[in-house]
């Protein structure tokens, strides 16, 4: 019973926090709400018997990736320049088409879900099981993921380097 209450509470928090995150004008506020949403999802993971996934969600998602976001936002040092234009969001021609589309898509997804036979969550999957499977049958996926991360590393270094160099030149010019 407690689990059900916890699940629905966490779901509600996740949804509301997500909506708030996506409607903020200020990026930092949005990120805070997003972290909240991710934490709520971590709770859900825990409830449906995936404690290892919940831990990863907290540590990597809400921890590492979001910190990356915040670092970048701090580097850009945004003012409230962009906020004004975001007010256009309220105009119907901006939101009418996306809203209609997403509603149609939602209806379709609900229809798809309602077609499947009702099923329930089986129970706990321990981290040990996950680890054995990961380095057993899925070892190729691990390799692929490592390649992907390497590519991301190289790509982001290449893209970010110029920005950093230019910033250094600008600052040195300012000094002299």
């Amino acid at each position, binding site marked *: 019973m407690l689990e059900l209450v916890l699940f629905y509470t966490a779901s509600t928090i996740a949804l509301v926090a997500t909506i708030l995150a996506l409607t903020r004008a200020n990026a930092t506020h949005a990120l805070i709400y997003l972290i909240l949403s991710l934490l709520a999802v971590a709770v859900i993971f825990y409830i449906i018997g995936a404690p290892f996934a919940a831990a990863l969600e907290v540590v990597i998602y809400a921890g590492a990736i979001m910190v990356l976001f915040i670092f970048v936002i701090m580097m850009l040092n945004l003012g409230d320049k962009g906020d004004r234009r975001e007010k256009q969001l309220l105009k119907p021609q901006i939101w009418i*088409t*996306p809203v209609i*589309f*997403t509603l*149609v*898509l939602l209806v*379709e*997804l609900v*229809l*798809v879900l309602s*077609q499947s036979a009702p099923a329930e969550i089986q129970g706990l999957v321990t981290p040990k099981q996950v680890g054995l499977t990961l380095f057993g049958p899925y070892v190729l996926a691990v390799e692929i993921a490592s390649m992907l991360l390497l590519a991301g590393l190289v790509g982001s270094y290449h893209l970010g380097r110029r920005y950093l160099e230019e910033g250094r030149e600008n600052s040195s010019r300012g000094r002299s």
Partner: protein
Amino acid sequence: MLKLLPLIPLFPLVSSIILMVTLGKLPKRMVAILGAGSVGMAALITLLVGLAFMETGQPHHQVLWTWMRVGEFSPDIAFYLDGLTLVMMSVITGVGFLIHLFSTEFMEDDNSFSRYFAYLNMFVFAMLILVMADNLLLLYLGWEGVGACSYLLVGFWYQNPDNGAAARKAFVVTRIGDTAMAVGLFLLFTELGTLDIQPLAEAAKSQWEVGDTLPVVACLLLLGGAVGKSAQLPLHTWLPDAMAGPTPVSALIHAATMVTAGVYLIARTHELFLLAPPAMLAVALVGLITSLMAAFTALNQHDIKRILAYSTISQIGYMFLALGVGAWAAGIFHLVTHAFFKALLFLAAGAVIHCLHHEHNIFKMGGLRTRLPVVFWSFLIGSAALAALPLTSGFFSKDMILLQAYELPGVGPWLWVGGLLGALLTAMYSFRLVFVVFFGETKMEPDKQPGVRMAVPLSLLCVLALVGGFFALPLVPLASAFPVASEHHPSHLIEGISIAVPLIGLAIAYFIFLGGQWKVDGLVNSASGQMLRKFWFSGWAMDWLYDKFWVQPYKSLTHLLRRECMDDIYNTIVKFCQLLYRVFSYTQAGRLRWYATSMVFGMIVVIALLQGVI
């Protein structure tokens, strides 16, 4: 000896190529020796080959190499020698050599001396290929080759646009017939599976019955080609205009050899025609009608070469008549004698023109009998042979044709009557020509006499035209090529009539044009007489008719198409593509949100499809 066969066309070919690549840099003497000598050599080898052939009398077949191989179709470059081929080769090289010799003097003052002989030698080569070919495809190569050379030589003096137009007309009109012939060849190949002439005849005889539809169609298509090349109705209009070329060219191409290619084709494929009696009848009728129409027209012309041109059309009509009634040997015999006397007439006319500052109008000539005696006697003998006066060569051949036409059951006597009428007219126009040009008062003085290189060919051809009838018939080994016609001896009355008719024609011509006993001015100058005269003068208004029914509609069609209404279709396609381009480039707005939205739309559609909602 028979192995020398391929050398015969090789000599003119080599000479022609030498003359072409030297670009007229050779001295004229050299060109003359090369041009006439090569054909002379060909004639000599033809003589040797002919003698060797006479010993055995067996057809000789010589394969040089395989031309091409496309599936089951592999025509050879191969020659076939039998009586018919030998006769044609003799005419081409023999008469051709005399005409080349004549040309060396006739064209002496022309700047394009070398070009002339290059074309003429090339023509001899192509014509030899035509008659020696073992298969119809090689024959077609020669057929087109002579057409091309004819085009080049008719338009030889291309600086005058009229000559170019005449050349184009000759080319285009014969092309109509050639297309029919090509279709005929396709039909023969698809039906019988070969184009080699001898196997083709065998296959036709085994596969087709007499009177089937297919042989009739095939023969009519071949007849179309023959009609175009030989200037028969309805494709005869090009020949009078082709007189724009030099006169020896008219003698060689448009009298002695090329225009008789149609006769040769029908004779060569006579086994097919024997399977198609309606096509035979068509050949005979085309020949007879053409012969009469052309004879009427010849009677009204005043250009010396045009008279001879219409006369040629008329005489080839006779040959067609002979072929149509199954008198193959007679048709080819007439071809040979016609080659002799018509070449003689053309060369003599050329000599007249040469000596009279290129004057063509016969009514401006007159009394040349004493001024140009050699030419006069040549012309007289040629005209006598043309009119088929007794004992000349033309008499024998025409007599044979008429008799065999008479013996044809059914329409035979009618064809005979038509042929007699043609003979009467032939005698009238040929002696009208002689009387007007060589008798009467002198209107123009010739400024030079024909030299020895003109006189010798003329004299030799005189001899051939006079006595060719005696020795040509037994000598010519046509028997091996054709089914032997049964010997009949018609009544003396028929013989007598066919002897008398040309004499009557001669007399009429004498009374009207020389003696002046018959005054026809009143008749000619009356309104209807004038109209008829004009009608005949224009060659039965055929040119006018074709202009109205073919050339003008075609021209207006081209004017219509000049507006490029076909292009509108393509432009519409282009415009549609441009419209699509604009629409699609509009979707490439460069806005991320737009892309995302369109992706979502796609997602919706895909899910709906997968779930079967739509």
